Structure formats: structure tokens, C-alpha cells
């Protein structure tokens, strides 16, 4: 009986909306990019707005992935597979979101600090921030202070996000913040920092506005900081 049930093929297009969204959460969790692309298209064809698909089907699913990663239930390969699936869905939604001209919740410049080339965590943050309605300008890896500062000024960002995976590169975050202070622009921006070797204490020591232990926390921190500044 169980085998019969397990082998039963699920036809996404035959599922009602609520079950389809639940199924997409499962498919995201399992990193099934093709199914996510298909599910996204079905919801759009049924008249859902791109924003609604993004929020309910994709971000909702990735939030579960984020929590289980934080709690040690999921590991990096599984999160990467889930992120690839979300990216596949986003590829369909992004042009529509741009077309509809929805004003972003805020703007973030993000990058991995100088000397560091690790970007898995940073990419996840970028994806979750986009999912939450923020505009993200991703500078990439090995970013020096001048590049960060030029970018936040040019894009008039609300947030600067810095990521580091190495204990040898994380002190560079302070170099960037100090340079912002020297230029007298520190208070114009909220600085979020994150990465595996960081902690709350380090975030405070370098003078960041928030330390984000994972991608979901980064979104929450950004929302809270925005709300606090009005």
C-alpha cells in the first residue's frame, strides 16, 4: 500500500492552489528545480501575481530550508540544491517583478570581503533578501573598501552587507566601517555582517548595526532596522 502511494505520480497542474504551494515547499526542500519552474508557471497561469508566487511559494519554502540548515537538519549541499531550485523559479518571476515596477522594500549592496572568495552564504542572503522584496546589488567576492563605498554611494543603498568565511578575512569588515566613518558616511547606511566564524560579539566590536547568523535572520534584521528608522 505504502509503495503504491509513494509511486503515485503527482501532477502539479491538477493540484488546487493550496496543495500546489505545499508541494512547491517540498520540492524546494528537495532541490527539484524543474518542478519549481513548472509550479511557478502554473500559479502565474492561474492569475497569481509574481509577488504572491514569490512570497508564498518560494520564500515560504526557503524559510523552512533556512531554519533546518540552522538547526543542523540540512547540510550545505542540500541548501545549495534548494537555492538552485529557487533560482530557477526566480528566473521566471524576476522579469515580471521588474515589469510591474513594485517599489523595493529597500536596497542592499552586498559582497564578500577582500581576500575571501567564499560566496555560498552571501548568495543565499542575496536570494532571501530579493525574495523579501529588497533590491540587491551583488558585488561578488574579494571586495575592497573603496568598491563597497563607491557602490553604496552610487546606488544610494539602505544597507551594506558584508560576508566572510575566514577568520583571517573577517577583520577586514572593520577596515570598511572605519573608512566609512572617515568619509563621514557611516550613519547614512545600515551595516549587516555575517559568515560562519562571526558572532554577535564580533559584529558589535567592528561597529556593525547587526550580525546575521543566517539568511533568514538577515531579512529580519533588515526589516527591523528599516522599521526603526521609519
Amino acid at each position: 500500500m505504502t509503495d503504491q502511494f509513494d509511486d503515485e505520480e503527482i501532477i502539479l497542474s491538477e493540484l488546487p492552489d493550496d496543495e500546489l504551494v505545499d508541494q512547491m515547499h517540498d520540492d524546494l526542500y528537495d532541490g527539484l528545480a524543474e518542478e519549481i519552474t513548472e509550479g511557478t508557471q502554473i500559479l502565474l497561469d492561474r492569475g497569481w501575481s509574481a509577488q504572491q508566487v514569490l512570497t508564498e511559494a518560494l520564500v515560504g519554502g526557503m524559510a523552512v530550508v533556512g531554519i533546518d540548515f540552522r538547526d543542523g537538519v540540512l547540510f550545505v549541499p542540500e541548501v545549495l540544491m534548494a537555492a538552485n531550485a529557487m533560482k530557477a523559479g526566480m528566473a521566471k518571476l524576476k522579469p515580471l517583478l521588474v515589469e510591474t515596477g513594485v517599489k523595493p522594500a529597500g536596497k542592499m549592496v552586498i559582497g564578500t570581503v577582500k581576500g575571501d572568495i567564499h560566496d555560498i552564504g552571501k548568495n543565499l542572503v542575496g536570494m532571501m533578501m530579493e525574495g523579501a522584496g529588497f533590491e540587491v546589488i551583488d558585488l561578488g567576492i574579494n571586495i575592497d573598501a573603496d568598491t563597497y563605498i563607491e557602490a553604496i554611494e552610487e546606488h544610494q543603498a539602505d544597507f551594506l552587507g558584508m560576508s566572510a568565511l575566514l577568520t583571517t578575512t573577517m577583520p577586514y569588515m572593520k577596515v570598511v566601517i572605519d573608512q566609512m566613518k572617515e568619509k563621514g558616511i557611516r550613519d547614512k547606511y545600515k551595516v549587516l555582517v555575517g559568515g560562519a566564524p562571526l558572532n554577535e560579539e564580533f559584529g558589535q566590536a567592528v561597529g556593525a548595526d547587526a550580525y546575521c547568523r543566517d539568511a533568514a535572520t538577515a531579512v529580519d534584521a533588515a526589516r527591523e532596522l528599516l522599521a526603526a528608522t521609519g
Partner: protein
Amino acid sequence: MKAKVLVIACGAIARELVRISKLNHWDHIKFKCLPPELHNTPDRIPGAVKDMIEQNTGEYQKIFAAYADCGTGGGLDKVLEEYGVERIPGAHCYEFYAGSDSFHELSEDEPGSFYLTDFLVRHFERLVVKGLWIDRFPQLIPGYFGNYKRLVYLAQTDSEQLQAMARQQAALLKLEYCYRLYGDEPLAHILEPALEQ
């Protein structure tokens, strides 16, 4: 004769430690190793080292940790400080395999360097390919290694066989191959003063 110094070591450097110890006649040292797989979950290293220290407290005149920070973000240092245990300086085991100056030169020359040692070349299939699920999902390779430019094999032994394996591993990850033979010298040099009685 009862060993007077306990070295709690990462299993990834066990072979080298035993070799260096024999060469230097460090008969007063006893080695106990923790699984090298902990490197895939560095947050578990401090707890594992702490347990090992507690199990052996009072048994030795001195305990030393043959670990660098190894991705614990200072977590290992907090544990070691609590028990007055020293460790190998530096951020990574690659650093003590190459020697600090040489390693920093390599890193500055190309930040996108992915390092392998004899141990990692030998166990690449288990720790890297299977550990990161590349065997099941080769599409994950760009996500992990897309920003790396070269694979640097920091060799402890001059082995044609290991070099051939490392070359293949670089090709699998689509990275330029780079070979540096350091032998055991840098590690022995770091350990010697730390293991004095």
C-alpha cells in the same frame, strides 16, 4: 615509560605526526586523534576536543592540541583557554603544512586557491566528492568551486601516485593544478617547541 605529553590531533594529520614523532624520538608523547570528518562540521570541533581533554585530565603533564583554528571562529580557543591548553598557531592546517610565510604568500598570490594535502588527496573521494555530494549532483561543482582558480597540492611526501591523483582532482573541479613539496619540516618546526616537557 608513561607518556608525559598528550597531543590531541585532527585525524587528518595523524600520519605526519606519527612520522615526525618517530624521526625525532619523541617517546614522551602520546597521540590521540579525532575524526577528520569534523572538518566538514567545524562547529563540532571545540566540543570534541573538550571531551577529549576532560577524559585525559590528570593523566599527562601537558596536553597540546594539534589543531589550528580550523574554521571554529575562535570557538576552539575558548575551550583551550579554559583548560590552559595550547594549539598550533594559525587559521588552517594548510598554514602549518606550508609554514606561515609560505602559506600567506600562496594566499596573497591567488586568494582563489583550494588546498589539498597528502591526506586530502588520498581521501578526496570520501571527503570532497561524496562529502559534498558531487558524486550525486555534479551540478553543485560551480557553486562550491566556481570562485577558485587553482588547486594547490601542499605535499608532505614526494609521491608520483599522489601527484597524478591530485592532477585528476584539479581537472574534475576545473581548476589549474599547482604543486608544492614541503615535506614534514614546517609542521615539525612548529611542534618542536610546543612539545617540550
